[in-house]
């Protein structure tokens, strides 16, 4: 009893520890209370009653659900926005088409490499034929040059005859 008296005095001075307060709570909960302490029972009962006060609406998990729906909307809008921004950015800063591997044939842009190569070969062969045909007169010129070489020899022979005649006259 003295122990409880001391604890009660300490309690009202605000000096009890949680463990000591637990002793008091247990004491007043048991029902075997000294008559001198009976007047304090309602105090500890009031705390017990207070502990049973609970929120009427379940607040548990409401936040998560509420936030999840809100979050879902935010995420959807955000991702849509990001995707739109990326598309716009790609459209604005898209690399210019710099495909140099094309040919223009009769004003048409041809990107088929094989076709272009064959077409070019065909045209080059044609050019080659033209050149060969064009060079034919040049071959005749060469023949004429060969013929002229003989003429040059006549001139040399004439010079030698002249030289011999000169020598004869002197004698």
């Amino acid at each position: 009893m003295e122990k409880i008296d001391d604890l009660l005095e300490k309690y009202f001075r605000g000096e009890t520890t949680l463990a000591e307060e637990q002793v008091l709570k247990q004491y007043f909960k048991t029902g075997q209370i000294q008559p001198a302490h009976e007047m304090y029972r309602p105090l500890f009962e009031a705390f017990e009653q207070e502990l049973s006060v609970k929120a009427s609406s379940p607040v548990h998990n409401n936040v998560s659900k509420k936030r999840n729906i809100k979050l879902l909307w935010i995420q959807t809008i955000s991702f849509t926005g990001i995707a739109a921004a990326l598309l716009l950015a790609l459209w604005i800063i898209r690399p210019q088409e710099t495909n140099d591997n094309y040919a223009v044939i009769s004003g048409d842009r041809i990107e088929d490499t094989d076709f272009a190569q064959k077409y070019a070969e065909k045209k080059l062969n044609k050019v080659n034929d033209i050149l060969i045909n064009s060079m034919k007169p040049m071959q005749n010129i060469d023949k004429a040059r060969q013929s002229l070489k003989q003429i040059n020899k006549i001139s040399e022979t004439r010079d030698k005859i002249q030289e011999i005649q000169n020598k004869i006259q002197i004698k």
Partner: protein
Amino acid sequence: MDSSQFNNQILILSDKLFRLAKSILRNDMAAEDAVQELHLKLWEKRKTLDEVENISAFTFKSMRNLCLDLIRINKDEVELPPETEYDEINPYQQTEIKDMVTCIRNLIDNLPELQRTIIKMRDVEGFELSEIAFITNLTENAVTVNLSRARQKIREKILTEQKKVEQTIWKK
């Protein structure tokens, strides 16, 4: 802090937070709204909550500050200033008091906000003095003083009522 940690560390305190909010705001609906509002605010800050040492004390401190802000915003709220002393329960209230437990609960509810919060934090929720000091922004010594004052007021009331009972018996 992820969703599961948030549930286990903060949402689990909902009833305790409700009791604190109700004690300060003196209104069930307003208290529930305040708890919900706090949950939303803390959820938005959940990434920074990992750095908080005592999440429970931090949550209660946030709850009290939120309720006090709500009282400041709603000037109509009948709230006693922290220094206001307890007034005797009026006759209308007295008729409603059926027993001593109800009487004491009413007495606690009519204590100044600081004393009311401190006594409930300690005697109902079982917080350490250091935690209450953190929640109320006071020193531990100041908490002890306020706790003692609150308990003494209740004791005086109990003793007064006890005397009345004894006098009634004596008269008989």
